[in-house]
Structure formats: C-alpha cells, structure tokens
C-alpha cells in the first residue's frame, strides 16, 4: 500500500516560492518586445497575428466556462461586443487628450490600456448580470440566455446613436500593437492555467464532472459558475477592446451569432477543457481562410473562388466539426495540455489534474 516517494513539484523547482508568481511575466516581456520589433515593418502580418491573438483570447476564455466548468455559453461575441464598443467609445472621446507627464506614444498606450480595462470590466459586469440568474439553474438555460444576450447586445448597438448604429464606429485610434495583443494573450493563458492548477480550478472541474456531488462536498456551485463566467466575460471584453483598436471600423456585423459559434467551434475542436487545444484550434481556424485563399490563388482557380473564401468558411467549419465528432469526439487534445502529449524524453510538468 506504500506509495513510492514522489517529490513534490515545489521540491524540484529552483525558483523560490515568492518569485514563482511573477516569473512568467519576467520571461514574457522581453519575448514580447522582440516580437514587436520583428513585426514592426509588416502591416499584413501584424493584422493577421492580431486577429489570431484576439481569437486565442476568446477561445481560451470561453474554454474556462465551456470546458472547465462544463456550462454551455454560446454568446461570447456579445461580451466581445460590449468590450469593443465601450472601450472604442472611450478611446474616441479621449482621442485628443494626452497625459502631459508622459511622451505622446506612452500616453496613448496608457489611455488604451485604460479603455481596454473599462471595456473588460463592463463585459464582466454584463457577465455577472447574465450569469447570476441563469447559472442558478442546471442544464441548457445558460445556452439560451447567452444566445439571447448576444442578440440583444447586437440589436441595442444597431439602434443606439452613440454606437454609430448599423454603420459602426470608425476613427478609433489604432493604438493596438502586436505586443499589446500578445501580452493579453499571455495574461489570459496564464490566468486559465493558474485557475486549473488551483483549488478553484478543481472546484470548477468538479462541477463539470458532477454538479450534485460537488454541491454535496461543499462546493458553492452557483458561486463558482458565476465567477468563472465573469472571468471569461472579462477577457472576452478585453479581446473586443483590442479588436476595436486595430480594425478600421467596428460594426454590429462583427459580433453576430456566427462569431459566437466560431469561438465555440474553436473550443470544441481543440478539446473542451484544454487550453492548449483552444490556442491551437483558434490559430488554425483563423489562419485557415488565409491558407485557403493562398491555395486557391496558387492553384490558379478562378479568382472568384479565392474571393469567396469568407463565404465557404462556415461550411468548412461545419465539415471539420462533423469529421472531428466522428473521429475524435473529445476534440484534438481532449482535456490534455501540451506537456501531456509531448514525447516522453522531454521533461514533463507533473499534471495538476488527471
């Protein structure tokens, strides 16, 4: 019955405990700076990678609710819209203001981050208001409510002058940089991972596995569901804010039900519960249309086909899902993460969750 002595992960670590919290940040910042420098002269790559980054944030944050907690939210684009419009309007109104004690570029970035945070908090607030009543119930109610919420936001935006109605908002300062987008990608992934590795994450997984048992074991299931939903909405809002600051115009058409489904497809394709899966699937599905476009162009098929990629995108997603459900119903990664699927000779991180 004796267990072989497994050294605790802390025992092997050379990093003192007080530094482990900030270590990833210390590593990430120089990488981001390098990233920014490499991309400084490539506008198309910058745009494409920014879209990829935003989609990664969306997928990873949705995975916290749909994957880890096992609830089913299908209105993520709604929260993204809240973040995009709130931070967009804020940036527009702060356009001519500069913080006098900072250089102009730095002042722009500070105001940009501020607008992002306001957008994120607004989305989180919406998440709280939507989640509190619907997460008390078990089952499919959340899906119905989030679906409705997404549409309500879109309709509200379409009929509000301050949000530019159907025409959308244009002229939002293009303050977004790849470094900023990927900083938030990094933060989202870090938060998702830290949640998984903590007791909060275990409680969320417990809810996903068996809500009745979790409640009986003292887990405040409603509370945890609402919290995970709020965190997820916050990052959706941030993603929306980032999006609003690098596309020339945001309009209600960017935040339709189709966008929500796109994010759900990313999460399901990657594997419900796998952050790695969400990242891989978001990247793949964002680059897929570009890939198809280049492919058609190279094949020399009629130019029209290359232009129609955006229209054939959804059927392709659908086909992918059907194939996936038949071949690998748990998604590409299942609930596993990168270090679980790496070959054995690479030193592994010990799993927090089996």
């Amino acid at each position: 019955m004796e267990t072989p002595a497994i050294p605790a992960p802390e025992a092997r670590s050379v990093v003192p405990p007080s530094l482990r919290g900030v270590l990833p940040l210390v590593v990430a910042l120089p990488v981001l700076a390098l990233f920014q420098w490499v991309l400084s002269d490539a506008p198309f790559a910058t745009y494409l990678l920014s879209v990829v980054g935003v989609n990664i944030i969306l997928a990873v944050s949705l995975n916290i609710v749909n994957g880890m907690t096992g609830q089913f939210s299908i209105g993520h684009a709604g929260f993204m819209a809240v973040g995009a419009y709130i931070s967009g309007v804020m940036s527009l109104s702060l356009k001519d203001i500069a913080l006098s004690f900072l250089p102009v570029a730095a002042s722009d970035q500070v105001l940009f981050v501020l607008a992002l945070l306001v957008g994120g908090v607004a989305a989180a607030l919406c998440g709280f208001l939507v989640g509190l009543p619907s997460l008390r119930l078990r089952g499919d109610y959340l899906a119905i409510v989030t679906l409705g919420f997404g549409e309500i936001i879109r309709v509200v935006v379409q009929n509000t002058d301050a949000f530019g109605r159907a025409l959308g908002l244009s002229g939002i300062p293009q303050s977004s940089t790849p470094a900023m987008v990927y900083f938030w990608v990094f933060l989202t992934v870090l938060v998702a991972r830290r949640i998984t590795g903590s007791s909060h994450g275990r409680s969320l997984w417990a809810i996903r596995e068996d809500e009745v048992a979790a409640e009986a074991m003292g887990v405040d299931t409603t509370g945890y569901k609402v919290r995970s939903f709020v965190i997820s909405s916050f990052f959706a809002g941030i993603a929306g804010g980032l999006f609003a600051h690098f596309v020339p115009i945001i309009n209600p058409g960017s935040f339709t039900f189709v966008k929500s489904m796109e994010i759900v497809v990313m999460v399901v394709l990657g594997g419900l519960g796998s952050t790695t899966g969400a990242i891989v699937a978001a990247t793949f599905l964002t680059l897929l249309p570009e890939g198809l476009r280049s492919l058609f162009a190279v094949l020399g098929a009629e130019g029209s086909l290359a232009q129609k990629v955006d229209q054939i995108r959804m059927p392709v997603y659908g086909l992918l899902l059907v194939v996936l459900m038949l071949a690998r119903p748990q998604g590409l990664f299942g609930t596993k993460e990168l270090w679980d699927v790496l070959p054995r000779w690479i030193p592994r991180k010990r799993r927090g969750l089996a």
Partner: protein
Amino acid sequence: MNASVQEAKAQAEVEPGAPLLQADGVSIQFGGLKALTNFNLSVRQGDLQGLIGPNGAGKSTAFNVLTGVYQPTRGEVRVAGQRVNQWLPHQINHLGLARTFQNIRLFRALSALDNVKVACRAQGALHPEGVGLGAKVKGAFFNYCDWWRALLLTPRFQQEERELTQQAERLLEVMGLSHRRDEEARNLPYGEQRRLEIARALGTQPKVLLLDEPAAGMNTREKADLMVLIRKLRDDFKLGVLVIEHDMKLVMGICEHITVLDHGETIARGAPAQVRSDRKVIEAYLGDSYLESHGGAA
C-alpha cells in the same frame, strides 16, 4: 436565520453531546405523493445508526432532505443545532454533514487525489458565508482575495496547496488508496471507488457521515472489511454515522439503532434485536402472506 455558518459551527462546539443531526417531524410531498411522513431522527457523536426499508420506502429521499437537496414540506432539520431548512447543500455540508451516494458520483475525470482535494478545499476555504447580506458581502470579499492569491501564486497560496495535498494524501492512506493517488477516479475498481467516495466525504471534515448503501455490489469479504472500516472511522474521526443499507447482516451487525421506513412512514425504530422481531417490519419485508403462513412474528 442570520447567523453565519461559522457562528453556527462555534455554537455546535460549545454543546458537547447535543444531537448533531436532528429531524423533527419532517414530511415531504411531491405533488400528491407523500415521499416521507413525520420522519424523526437524532444522531449524536459516536452513534452508528441504520436506516432501512424496502425499495421505494423513502430512504434516499430522507437523505436528500437531510442534506438539503430537497426542502421539507413540513417539519425541520437541524444540523449542529442550526435550523437548515432552505439552506443549500454546500452550506449544510460546511456545518459538518457529509454524504456518499447510492450510485457512485465521483468526479470521474479527476485523479483520486484531486477528488479528495476538492472536498478538503471546500472546507479549508470556509468563508463567513451565511444568509445575511453582511455575511454575503464579507464572503464575496474573502473569495475575491482568495482568487487573487491563486492567480498571483503567492507563497501563502502555495503553502495552502501543499497542506491540502498532505491532508488528502492522509485520507487516501486511511482508506487504503495511496497506491491509486494519481489514477483517474473512473479507472478505479468498483470497491475502491466506494472507498474513495468515503475518503472524499471525510475530506470535508464532517461531524456526521451519511452512507447511502455503502455495501451495494460488494462481495461478502468486502462487506466484512467495510463493517470494520465504518466502526474504525466513527472512532478515529469522532463521527456520528447514519447508514442506509439493504444488507441485513451488515446493518444488524454494526448499527446500534435502526429506523425502518415503509412507504415514507417510520414503522419501527430501536435496537436491532427489537426491530428484527417487529411484526410490521416483517410484514413490510416479507409480505403479510408470510406472516399468515408462519403464524406471527418469526
């Protein structure tokens, strides 16, 4: 009703020997169906009680009322002296009532260790959450700080996490599951899953443990081991134990007090010998035709 869980806990600790779990005239009705009528029960520390009855007698319903899954239509349930009608199951659990399930409900994709850690944590992070608004705000604030500690990976969080692991490992050891530590719960053999459920329930540091058919599907040998184990747990963890069980040998063997239900009504209660010879009990289990042919109590 405004008292927080912690206050209630403190109250319970100043009154030794008081009933930890008490049901007073509890009735529950689903539409026209009376699932439980005037159910009375009192479990003290060190008690080992049984709850028996034929299929559909309302045993599991009784468990569900006690643990807060259902609300009683009439009567009241008290845990650690606190009236818990309208409380949520997790709040009742925090007062010191833990249960296992008739059909095993483990967190199947989590490792054995994590299954226990979920339960340990829920208790370790006991915030002053109660029914009043002040307690709610306080609880929300505690929770908020707690999330930030996890997200920032503070040394205090890491320390807590280590303690949790140790606590869970100890419980696995007690239940003889140390060798399954990192195995997914769904891959454990049946008997071990049952034991893991008990380990998980113990993780919440209960005062009263409710076992819903712990011996279901076990062979004679395993049942004998289980009897020893239940007694040992009661003594080592200073618990009150309430067992639902079909296996008469097991119930009669370990329980000191038995309540018999039939059609939601309590038809007998008392020591095993007394219950065994009760006419109504025999009738409920074997039918009145048996009584007629054998001429009264066996």
